[in-house]
């Protein structure tokens, strides 16, 4: 067993193990930290697949952004050291059973299916290739989705501010300058 294969299995075990711990622990802060390690494991799998750019984006956005956001919201909404309420054992067992059955069904179908690989010149996922195709307006270019996503991000940012803004009392509103 060579080192590369060993690293792959290590990353896979790390990702899945931490994911299971993230959804099963009763301490919410620990759940966030386990989620962080699971996301780092996925970034490692991207590195293993030699998709360096996606791995970097994964670390920047998920590990650096979303997890920090989740930890902040935990601090804002949760009492420190408080355990999550215990779930009904029946609900847990039933969900685990249903999820396991669905997983087994998917895996059975997957191993029966023969995938056909595409042929042709391989394109390396380098940053120059990605950037060129992302901003290309010719066929196969992704300039329009790129613009749409940037508009969506702007709308989401404004929406966040509007939703989370403390509503001003109507009595004090007249005193504010316009």
């Amino acid at each position, binding site marked *: 067993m060579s080192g590369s294969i060993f690293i792959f299995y290590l990353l896979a075990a790390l990702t899945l193990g931490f994911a299971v711990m993230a959804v099963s622990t009763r301490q*919410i802060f620990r759940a966030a930290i386990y989620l962080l390690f699971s996301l780092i494991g*996925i970034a490692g799998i991207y590195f293993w697949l030699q998709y360096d750019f996606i791995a970097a984006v994964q670390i920047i956005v998920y590990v650096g952004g979303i997890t920090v956001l989740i930890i902040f919201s935990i601090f804002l*909404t949760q009492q420190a050291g408080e355990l999550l309420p215990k*779930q009904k054992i029946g609900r847990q067992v039933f969900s685990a059973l249903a999820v396991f059955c669905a*997983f087994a069904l998917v895996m059975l179908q997957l191993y029966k299916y023969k995938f056909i690989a595409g*042929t042709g010149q391989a394109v390396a996922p380098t940053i120059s290739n990605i950037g060129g195709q*992302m901003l290309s307006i010719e066929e196969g270019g992704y300039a329009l989705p790129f613009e749409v*996503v940037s508009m969506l*991000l702007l709308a*989401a940012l404004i929406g966040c501010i509007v939703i989370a803004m403390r509503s001003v009392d109507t009595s004090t509103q007249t005193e504010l300058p316009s």
Partner: protein
Amino acid sequence: MLTPGLYHLLFISSALFFIGVYGFVTRRNLVTMLMSIELVLNSVNLNFIAFNKYLWPNGLDGLFFTIFIIAIAAAEAAVAIAIIINLYRSHNSIDVEQAEEMKY
């Protein structure tokens, strides 16, 4: 069989997907449900990258889908956390059992 290939990656991504679904079904706290959704989205990203690597080497389309999913996931997490904080402010709890009426 031991050499990692497409099927191993698909195994990881579907396992991650169903772990996320399990968390979403069993948890009753909005922040932990959001974490489960992040796991599900990550499994989809991994799926796209695996298919792009092994079945579609002459294009980068899976990679672009992954980038757009990451961007939309970031927007979704930000909006969800704004809603959660607003809900905590009005109900003093982020348990989904206690947020039954959809009144502002």
